[in-house]
């Protein structure tokens, strides 16, 4: 199963629960930026299921004629500002990120979280010059938890997953972006049935409960 980097922790747990509920079926994951994964799949990487952090990359799979079933939205996510634990610099919102003395990292424009960050800056009417454009959302989180960067724009769920390593400063709803996560089986998959079963499990009560635990919104 190929899944967006922001799904790392939640999907690992969903996978375990799925394995427990369906003896004989195991879910193994490859996590990376959705854009990297869709490129790998179109190059023939053996994926049964693709879970994307945006519809644009799922559309790419559709264009390539590679999705098995219709994609379904299984979760939503909001974006937030990730800061060091306790927010030592007292960052209050997106406008603060425009400060040139602040080391800010966001995702590259090529990956969904980077596009979302740019949209949010546009909504807020601020110009942010990032110090680094990371290749996936985990790169942003890691640079903040390692203390190299002061702030970054990531998904709410990434900060939840970082535990004590990071805190968040909320981005108000009127300028935020709601990220919708679609999932679909991949055409030519060796085990399409197991893939369908996994999607049913994920959109079912148990799967949705786990996703909520990690901070994802319901579709």
């Amino acid at each position, binding site marked *: 199963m190929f899944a967006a980097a922001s799904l790392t922790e939640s999907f690992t747990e969903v996978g375990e629960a799925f394995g427990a509920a369906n003896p004989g079926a195991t879910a193994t994951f490859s996590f990376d*930026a959705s*854009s*990297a994964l869709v*490129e790998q799949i179109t190059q023939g990487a053996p994926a049964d299921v693709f879970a994307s952090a945006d519809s644009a990359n799922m559309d790419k799979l559709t264009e390539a004629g590679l999705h098995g079933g219709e994609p379904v939205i299984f979760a939503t996510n909001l974006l937030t500002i990730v800061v060091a634990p306790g927010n030592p610099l007292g960052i209050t919102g997106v406008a603060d990120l425009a400060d040139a003395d602040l*080391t800010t*990292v966001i995702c*590259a424009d*090529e*990956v969904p979280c980077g596009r979302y960050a740019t949209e949010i800056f546009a909504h807020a009417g601020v110009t942010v010059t*990032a*110090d*680094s*454009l*990371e*290749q996936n959302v985990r*790169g942003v989180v890691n*640079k903040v938890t*390692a*203390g*190299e*960067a002061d702030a970054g724009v990531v998904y709410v769920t990434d900060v939840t997953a970082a535990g004590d390593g990071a805190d968040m400063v909320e981005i108000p709803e009127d300028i935020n972006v709601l990220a919708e996560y679609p999932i679909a089986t991949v055409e030519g998959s060796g085990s399409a049935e197991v893939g369908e079963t996994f999607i049913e499990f994920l959109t079912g009560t148990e799967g949705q409960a786990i996703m909520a635990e990690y901070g994802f919104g319901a579709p």
Partner: protein
Amino acid sequence: MIPTAAPETVHRRRVAGERLPWPFLVLAFAAIAFFALPFLGLLGRAPWGDLWSILTSDSALTALRLSLWCSLCASLAALLFGVPLAWMLARVPFPGSGFVRALCTLSMVLPPVVAGVALFYGLGRRGLVGQYLDRWFGFTLPFTTTGVIVAQTFVAMPFLVITVEAAFRQQDTRFEDAARTLGASRWYVFRRVTLPAIRPGLVAGAVLAWARALGEFGATITFAGNFPGRTQTMPLAIYLANEIDPEEAIALSLVLVAVSFGVLVALRDRYLGGGRPPHA
């Protein structure tokens, strides 16, 4: 096979020609195909029509310029620090030299991402030494061009060190002794006797280190991040381009392949162990 016998013997064997048993030939050709196929695939998918416009775009030129600058600086840094280190490892017996050699070549075999993470904890803003750079001089390496050079030097210098150390070891030290007894200073002997003797190893080591620095990806993106014009070298630009526009990625890759291949071909015969020994 590398002929190790005296020159006369080498000559005779060359005339007779080397006959490999056919299973060896088959395996050797399989190995050549294994190396050639991926590059043929790359050439086959190249957007020849748009190649020029892609390569002369601002973003491509910026990444190329940064890549060349950083890899050149990294090679010079590797030479500056690596040659004395190689000299010490080859010539000065000291307890724990095996340990030191292992330490200084570790970054060559580690996954580059590990090297990048380790650099964080050594030279990053919260790192062992990095925190003092930040506190005392307000200077941090991550997200800077200097950070890229540091990351590249870290993974590339071992290639120079092991090559130059081997050259130092193979050198006949009696010439240096003779020069010394004739009254030459240490520095003069190093410049006029030692350096010319190890020159092939020096060039080979510097080129290998340069090629490694040019292709460096993992340590760079982990330690220095990715920002066009500052830390986005060619490999980083290729990685990101591949996610939205594979054709652009292929075009950029071709440049790296061409540059690296050209340099290796130009230097191979004389310095990288192919062809005749340089003084034959």
